[in-house]
């Protein structure tokens, strides 16, 4: 196979991964790694590097659009980012001491967990009228547009949110993913933020967390430009297309089917790792 053929195939499958990542809500990064590892036999370190760059690109693109809609809470984002960057740098530094098969196994587990979390979540209306003490001091509470008015929300369990965000950052750095599912879980389920505020604020944070790990990735040589460029361009294009169609299709069963396809990819990666093929 020539480099040209390889790059075109990589581009095509990265578009597909970006599309599936957007449609399932899992994000392009966690989907593209098993594709690269299982289908193209790319070294998992390079796959993680390419994914990390794609994650920065897609989340930045989405964040730019979301910032105008008025859901993103910058204060909550930067408060939680304190823990996320710390986790990210520790995670990125841990890569070089962990064997590759451990990374592959961990990635499969996170993939299954994220699929589960993403599929089971649903929007609920919050009825809290007071917030955690830290939230009052740091002025984390905010309002969001709902039904033509700005509805207030009150932040709960601020310290626990910080801890979970540290873990999300750690996984992001360790595996080259955005950890969007876990970030949303921390804000939506623990801090009890409205779902749309949680997803847009998570999106705002992902790029900063990933950029923190990227320094270490560059330094250790995990970011291979020749592999990264078709993957990054493909994932951006796929995610963009996915976001466009997402408004038109609201079929839960389709999301379940896509998630199963992605999980099967994870199973294949797990199998090949355990069989010693990777």
């Amino acid at each position, binding site marked *: *196979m*020539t*480099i*040209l053929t*390889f*790059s075109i195939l990589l581009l095509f499958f990265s578009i597909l991964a970006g599309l599936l990542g957007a449609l399932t809500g899992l994000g392009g990064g966690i989907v593209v790694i098993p594709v690269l590892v299982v289908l193209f036999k*790319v*070294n998992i370190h390079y796959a993680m590097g390419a994914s990390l*760059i794609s994650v*920065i*690109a897609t989340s*930045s*693109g989405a*964040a*730019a*659009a979301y*910032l*105008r809609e008025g859901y*993103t809470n*910058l*204060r909550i984002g*930067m*408060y939680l*980012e*304190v823990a996320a*960057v*710390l986790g990210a*740098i520790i995670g*990125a530094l841990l890569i070089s001491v962990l064997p590759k098969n451990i990374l592959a196994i961990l990635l499969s587990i996170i993939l299954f967990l994220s699929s589960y979390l993403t599929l089971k979540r649903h929007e609920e209306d919050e009825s809290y009228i007071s917030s955690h003490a830290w939230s009052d*001091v*740091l002025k984390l509470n905010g309002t969001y547009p709902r039904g033509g008015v700005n509805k207030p929300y009150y932040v709960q369990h601020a310290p626990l949110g910080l801890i979970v965000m540290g873990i999300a950052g750690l996984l992001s750095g360790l595996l080259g993913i955005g950890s969007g599912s876990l970030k949303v879980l921390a804000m939506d389920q623990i801090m009890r933020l409205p779902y749309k505020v949680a997803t847009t604020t998570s999106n705002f944070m992902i*790029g*900063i967390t*990933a*950029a*923190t*790990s*990227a*320094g*270490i990735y*560059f*330094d*250790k*040589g995990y*970011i*291979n*430009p*020749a*592999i*990264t*460029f*078709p993957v*990054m*361009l493909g994932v*951006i294009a796929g995610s963009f297309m996915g976001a466009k169609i997402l408004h038109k299709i609201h079929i839960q069963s389709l999301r379940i089917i896509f998630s199963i396809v992605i999980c099967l990819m994870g199973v294949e990666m797990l199998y090949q790792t355990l069989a010693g093929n990777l």
Partner: protein
Amino acid sequence: MISELKLKHLLGLLLQIGIILSILLVLVGGISFLLQHGGESYQNNVILSTNYDIDIIKIWHNHHFNSPIGFIELGLLTLVIMQVLRVVLLALYYILIRDYWFISFNIFILSIILFSLIRQ
């Protein structure tokens, strides 16, 4: 005094410009890379065998615009630098409104990112 709404617009604009610039650089680098090396076999060439032991400072000093890979690296670097600028912009905003908690948060975040990017 700049409002938070204005700040969000500025952040959105910064992200948009950064991502377009980054995609353009990566696209130009990627296409010229394929024009130069596209016909070669991929197993034994640039893609899988080389260990890219690069860092941010080296990208800036060594490559610039004289090789396709250099272009791609500059595009990737743009993407990362844009995130740093985001935190800088937020830090400036919190300095303007004298919010000491958030000034400290942003300085902490900035130090960690910069440590990761420029440590040798």
